[in-house]
């Protein structure tokens, strides 16, 4: 192999090591942030779901070995790229509501028309893309069935809501008696505790106004 190509590859591998360590450091902070948000909004618990592509072990409870399969692709191994923090449900008066937080580290795929997520070189450039957190709230009447909640991952794959320009929307499902709210922030809004509290208050105010809830920061 030509020596300059080997050198190029060594430099690229060094960048890969830097990238992994940076993402590890970043994800540690995101886990702390998610925990802080859970405490601040007094939410019951925290479950995680991988988004954007399939997890490599879709049934971890079965404790089976992961078998390399033809259906896997590289994004399956990159959990932090898009992730759902599911805080589960709470009851307020006549309503039950579920809150999730979507960590979308790269709007690049969602900002372009291309439908194939396997090739990042077709995404919008890194500089033109954004990293964001999107709050998802689903409200039903107490003792009603959750219907749209089971379809929520369609919204998390929808370019309308995951692109960088999306800010907020309330979606009404009158036939299912459900209302869904989405509220997007650039991740920079959560840079420290004070900024996080301000962002959470902004989200809570919008939520309470649109969904007639009483979400409070404690």
């Amino acid at each position: 192999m030509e020596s300059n190509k080997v050198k190029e590859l060594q430099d690229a591998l060094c960048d890969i090591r830097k990238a992994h360590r940076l993402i590890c450091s970043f994800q540690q902070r995101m886990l702390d942030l998610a925990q802080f948000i859970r405490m601040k909004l007094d939410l019951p618990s925290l479950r995680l779901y991988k988004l954007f592509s399939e997890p490599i072990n879709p049934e971890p409870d079965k404790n089976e070995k992961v078998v390399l399969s033809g259906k896997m692709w590289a994004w399956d191994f990159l959990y932090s790229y898009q992730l759902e923090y599911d805080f589960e449900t709470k009851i307020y008066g006549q309503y039950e509501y579920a809150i999730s937080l979507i960590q979308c580290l790269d709007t690049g795929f969602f900002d372009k028309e291309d439908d194939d997520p396997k090739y990042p070189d077709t995404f919008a450039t890194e500089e033109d893309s954004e990293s964001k957190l999107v709050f998802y709230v689903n409200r039903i009447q107490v003792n009603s069935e959750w219907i749209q909640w089971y379809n929520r991952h369609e919204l998390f794959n929808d370019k309308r809501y995951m692109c960088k320009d999306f800010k907020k929307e309330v979606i009404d499902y009158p036939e299912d008696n459900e209302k869904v709210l989405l509220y997007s922030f650039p991740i920079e809004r959560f840079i420290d505790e004070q900024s996080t509290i301000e962002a959470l208050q902004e989200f809570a105010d919008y939520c309470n106004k649109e969904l007639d809830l009483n979400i409070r920061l404690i």
Partner: protein
Amino acid sequence: MLQALLHSKLKASFDNPSFRPSEDTLTSSVFGILQYLPDDTLWQIVRNSCGEGKQFLPETIGEIEYIDFWPKYRDVEGTTNRSYVEPDVLLVTKKYYVIIEAKKFDGGGQYLTQWKNEIRAINNEDDTKEILFVAMGGNSTLMHEEISVELKNAEVRTYIINRSSWFNLLNEIQKIESSKERNRLVTDVTQAMNRHGFIQIKWLNSLMHNKTISTESITTINRWKSHRIIFLEGFKKKININSINTIWNPIK
């Protein structure tokens, strides 16, 4: 930890050669160190760590006359205990008894009967001071709770249970105003809490990124072709698992 040692609470933690953290070692390690802070600072940390109930806690409780660990209250009339009632930590000022009832983990374990027992037992002994209650850890919610307790003279009084979490407490400890002495205290109590499984929040503003990553590297990896790398390119395509031996060239 010193308090746990002095009150003979360490037996279970040192049964076998390795240290096993317990509720008592956590309580002792944390409040055993925090007690050396100025009274107002200690109180602000405890108060600010509480959830919504902190609005019902006074901004100041005055000079702390003494702090007691696992005090035994033997007048158990009106409680469900037979011999004594033992809150975990008691802060005593001129005007207040502040009961801190601790549980080992955040998430569950606090319960009504124990709260009532502790309030009643302390009131049995001294009804001249107001009682404040902090449930530290063991809460599935940090919303405060109002409870009614029947006291010695048959009076029924309402008390507010202020819920807190070790997660919040550790976060408040990090905000202590810096000084040489306090930094040592903060370091020690933080490390003690780390040992018990509680890690302080790292915020995004501490994310260091002073190393350049070149996007040229992506081009390089995409161009990377060798007899081994064909396998890596296969991740973009479906992999036929029956071809695995061909791909790997098994070592003979």
